[in-house]
């Protein structure tokens, strides 16, 4: 996992509550043997006018001009701004994989579904919970100004708007630490590699038949 660094990124507004994981990445794409490459199918049913198939070349598919991510001003967005209960539904890890593969680093919403919340942090995606009224204001400002960008400072747990307004947010220490250090579960476990080696050696001496 890459270290999560302070950055400034363009915001794309997805004005919708209860966005479920099926909407984020529909089921037919789970047949893939990859963890990457889901970006072109992110929000597939909202984004294209036809039904997508796994492995299909999406460049010639008809785009839905009304969908926010199809608008040129949001093409390079790195922050997704949305409404409450984002990521509800199934436990598929493909949902954060698709958001990241598209280029999102942060999702800002009033609330997130539990499983999605876990899966996102496991994969380096920062989820920021803000108050409903703060979210409302951000929606307005995003729409008013093209190229609207926010600065995300995870270290100090704050978002800085172009006007210099500071919005503070909560995140638990362990998850914050993992993101800042770029540690996934495996990375964290590997910090204990000496302990594992030591255990393994002792295990081997006690029960050599397990090592054949």
């Amino acid at each position: 996992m890459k270290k999560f660094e302070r950055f400034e990124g363009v915001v794309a507004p997805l004005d919708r509550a209860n966005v479920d994981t099926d909407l984020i990445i529909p089921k037919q794409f789970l047949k893939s043997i990859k963890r990457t490459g889901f970006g072109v199918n992110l929000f597939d049913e909202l984004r294209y006018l036809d039904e997508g198939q796994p492995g299909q070349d999406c460049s010639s598919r008809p785009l839905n001009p009304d969908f926010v991510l199809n608008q040129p001003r949001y093409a390079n967005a790195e922050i997704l701004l949305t409404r409450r209960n984002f990521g509800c539904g199934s436990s598929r890890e493909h949902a954060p994989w698709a958001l990241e593969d598209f280029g999102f680093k942060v999702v800002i919403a009033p609330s997130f579904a539990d499983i999605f919340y876990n899966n996102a942090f496991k994969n380096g995606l920062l989820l920021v919970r803000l108050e409903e009224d703060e979210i409302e204001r951000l929606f307005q400002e995003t729409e008013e100004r093209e190229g609207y960008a926010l600065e995300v400072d995870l270290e100090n747990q704050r978002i800085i708007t172009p006007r210099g307004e500071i919005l503070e947010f909560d995140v638990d220490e362990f998850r914050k630490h993992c993101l800042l250090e770029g540690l996934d579960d495996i990375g964290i476990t590997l910090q204990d590699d000496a302990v594992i080696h030591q255990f393994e050696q002792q295990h081997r001496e006690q029960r050599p038949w397990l090592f054949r």
Partner: protein
Amino acid sequence: MSAKTLYDKLWDQHLVKQRDDGTALIYIDRHMLHEVTSPQAFEGLRLANRKPWRLDTNLATTDHNVPTTLIERAEGNKGIKDPVSLIQVQTLDDNCREYGITEFGINDPRQGIVHVIGPEQGATLPGMTVVCGDSHTATHGAFGALAHGIGTSEVEHVLATQCLLTQKMKNMQVRVEGELGLGVTAKDVVLAIIGKIGTAGGTGYAIEFAGSAIESLSMEGRMTVCNMAIEAGARVGMIAVDDTTLDYIANRPYAPTGEQWEAAVADWRNLVSDPEAEFDNVVTLDAAEIEPQVSWGTSPEMVTGISGQVPDPEAALDETIKRSHVRALEYMGLQPNQKITDIQLDKVFIGSCTNSRIEDLREAAKVAKGKKVASNIQLAMVVPGSGLVKRQAEEEGLDKIFIEAGFEWREPGCSMCLAMNADKLGAGEHCASTSNRNFEGRQGYGGRTHLVSPAMAAAAAIAGHFVDVRGLPANDANHAQEA
């Protein structure tokens, strides 16, 4: 020093590190892989530039997607017609080759369902931690091992670190005491247990199966019981080590030999719960009361004895149960109070990691010998759990018994247990199946699964509907001894 359960002992023997946040690092001795849940894990390793921690703990096979007819299998991977399935199978082959992991590929004589081949090879040993990206990994607990299924991220974690980040479960003991009736098998025992405690009864627990009826089971039977611990909500099922366990393991390819065997046996003898050990929950069943079981609904807990009937939702204890029964009867096309023996069948499937071992095939063959599959049965198939099971069955002449009776004799794999290959139920078809899940659509879109033992499945194939195997004239069992 306090008394320990078998689970406590296995946990303690593998605890690498207890963390302050309540999670723990557990060392993994055996990691089994199949094609469906491993590709993203290998890709993750590659992206992070990591290598498997210890190659010799991994054992892979392709089982879920492989076709089961001889014609298709003769072509190896090329016989897989669905391109998506083919890619999954080839990806496992490629990953194993790239990293140097032992794989029993599609036409290896040792290929088979992952939970059949591990024990068969002696790759599952008492005292091991065994994991696999598959919920039926609980099967391996029959050997006094700590075995459970894991997710794809965890598959990658185990590959990279040889450890699992997990939390200790609670202890539950399920005791089955007394003697099983003639014709009542391990499958009936575990279905009866699930019927009693429900599909969430074991949630959060590691279940140890114990009691005289469990002790009297063969290893094949014990694996059948542990296999379905997951259907009772428990990720882990296990049974203490005894002579039956040791006799099964001796001389298997991966088992220790000579002095190491002696040392191992001395160690394995301790893999039993201490007499004073306390369980958080104990459930007891009387073996004599267990009848051959048949599931009537769309959850494994919707099960009853062969002499029973489909329940009337109106009689349900509460509104939630009533609604789920109504929905299940509708999906299954059954009437309230319909007798189980009146359920007409269209297909019969004998196979899966629950019931595709040699003993299962012998039991089914015993019933099928000299009989004919009923005319209303469109397809009755027998799918051995591995290439070696198939070979042994053929040496014993079981294949001929099945073929003469009108069963199809197939190549090993998961097959119609989950219908990821071409073996499927059609919409509305009723199937007597020796597999483990009767969920909606599990064996094919709209398919209706009834879970039963191999003997019950064979008897149903002959009769065209469910019958009580206990009422059948005793069959000549000589062929079973010939091996």
